């Protein structure tokens, strides 16, 4: 266990230190919202931010990715490559780190995704602990993602005029060293300080879901036929916003993009959404999730039920993005509370 202090006034020095060998991406204000973007200096970064429009999954699993190039008339791809760059994702929230863990679980699962694997290897994650709850949409307390646990190379915690940085991996150790701005601190002292800060922090976080972490799987197991899905389906406009902004949604479609001279092209994968009507359609136009209600239910079950059975892990990080992005004001808090209410009354 290694901990260091960083004076707040040295933040830009830290960014410059990281930038020597890495591309640095961090939360940046964009109009009234935030995005992860490349940064040149600390001034561009907003450390206190509402979850960004898109989660950092875009760096691991780009919205569009070339699987390979081809020449027309051939059967094998002429090349299968991926572009990588040593990158630091700076100031990721703990909920988003949990989202990365979910994606790692999927793409590392046999058969391992070769593109993801190469990209992931080049990415370092420096987290930034939220000391204040963000808004009414977040359910991180119930999902147990509001305090740092795993999945980061280093984690920064605000301690007044300085940050306490916890180093959690070899990669993190290499990044947070060889610079006088990082002041070594005895781990017992740092832990004690963090403990106090966290105790004060937790008082500010309230629970919005009526079900607890351990009750959720049981509630979902009993709610497949609930009328709540009908209501959600009636409001849903099948735009796919909720899945695009979700840190753990990874469904994709594949298509060929042909050059204008039709000599060849690229086979690509692109983010897809189970909320779109044709997603589960098969030949002959049979559709196994034709109703919006069944598609919305599928989304919720892919967060709270199916991955729990397959990977023993919730695929909801509690970040609240789906609720914020929904044009029809479908709220995850409301939906989950509705089925919980139904379930507990029975």
């Amino acid at each position, binding site marked *: 266990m290694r901990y260091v202090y960083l004076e707040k006034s040295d933040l830009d020095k830290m960014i410059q230190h990281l*930038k020597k060998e890495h*591309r*640095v991406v961090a939360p940046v204000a964009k109009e009234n919202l935030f995005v992860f973007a490349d940064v040149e200096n600390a001034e561009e970064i907003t450390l206190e931010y509402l979850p960004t429009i898109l989660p950092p999954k875009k760096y691991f699993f780009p919205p569009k990715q070339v699987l390979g190039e081809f020449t027309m008339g051939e059967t094998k791809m002429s090349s*299968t490559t991926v572009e990588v760059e040593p990158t630091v994702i700076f100031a990721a929230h703990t909920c988003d780190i949990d989202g990365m863990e979910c994606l790692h679980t999927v793409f590392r699962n046999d058969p391992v995704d070769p593109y993801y694997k190469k990209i992931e290897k080049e990415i370092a994650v420096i987290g930034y602990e939220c000391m204040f709850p963000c808004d009414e949409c977040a359910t991180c307390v119930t999902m147990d993602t509001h305090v740092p646990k795993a999945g980061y190379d280093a984690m920064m915690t605000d301690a007044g005029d300085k940050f306490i940085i916890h180093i959690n991996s070899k990669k993190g150790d290499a990044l947070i060293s060889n610079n006088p701005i990082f002041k070594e601190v005895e781990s017992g002292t740092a832990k004690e300080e963090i403990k106090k800060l966290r105790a004060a922090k937790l008082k500010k976080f309230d629970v919005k879901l009526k079900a607890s972490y351990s009750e959720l799987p049981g509630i979902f197991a009993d709610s497949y036929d609930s009328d709540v899905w009908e209501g959600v389906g009636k409001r849903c406009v099948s735009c796919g916003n909720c899945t695009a902004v979700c840190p753990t949604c990874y*469904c*994709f*479609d594949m298509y060929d993009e042909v050059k204008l001279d039709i000599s060849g092209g690229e086979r690509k994968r692109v983010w897809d959404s189970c909320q779109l009507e044709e997603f589960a359609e098969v*030949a002959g136009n049979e559709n196994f999730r034709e109703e919006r209600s069944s598609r919305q239910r599928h989304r919720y079950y892919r967060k709270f039920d*199916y991955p729990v*059975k397959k990977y023993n892990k919730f695929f909801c990080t509690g970040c609240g993005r789906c609720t914020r992005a929904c044009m029809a004001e479908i709220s995850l808090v409301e939906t989950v509370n509705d089925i919980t209410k139904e379930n507990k009354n029975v």
Partner: protein
Amino acid sequence: MCDCCNESNTKKQVIEVDPQYSPMEGTIVKTKIMTETEKFFEIKLEGGKELGHMPGQFVQFSLFGIGEAPISISSSPTKEDKSTFEVVVRKAGVFTSAMHKLEEDDKIGVRGPFGKPFPVDDLKGNDLIFVAGGLGLVPLRSLINFVIDKRRDFGSVDILLGCKAPKDRLFTDEAEGWNKLTDINHACTVDQSDPEWKGNVGVITTLIPGVDINVNRTYAVVVGPPIMYKFVISELLKKGMPEKQIILSLERRMKCGLGKCGHCQINDKYVCQDGPTFTYEELKGLEEAL
């Protein structure tokens, strides 16, 4: 994602990845028009390499510029010429229409085989009832021929075929051959007759009461359109067939075949990996399955 402001001097690198999505080269060695909408293809992989499949599996065919489509394998791995495999493709969309234009010596990309095969080891030592509706005979033919080639490993064999009209029948020559085998019972029915048809008329479930089933040692393998499953399964259950001895194969539009893209997901199951073959016991509670 905006890359315009990314001017750092870090090493961007283009690196080779495992060509997981790059197809193998297949050459079409034989084609045959089977019906108005179905065409048969026999395909040889580069260097005569064996596909290495088992009955019930599928491949992803690829045509650059058009895309990919999952297609069931119709030949048995016990087929004499191991250097080729066979499929039947129904013209149903952009990809399959393009594939229908291919002839002998044309090339096609192949990924696979994918999916969980029919549980042939469980079937061994048991009586078998094969029920195929329409295009369902295509994947089932792989298993039927497998069983015929390893006939002594299995008990009695009943093959029940159904299709809309006599002109829609597939593999009629082979079905004639099954009629001649004394160790196989074969019955066929059509929903709608034509003047020349002398066989059974009626939906496929009408053939089931005629089969003698010893429920303790019988497996039914059923492949057909979704509507057929509901009726055939209920008829088999009526006969007392245990749910775990009814085997089905499902059709979904898989994109990756690798358990990632999400398109073939039925509740918590990925058809490309957990299927396409399932026991009825595995599927019965799943609303999105049938």
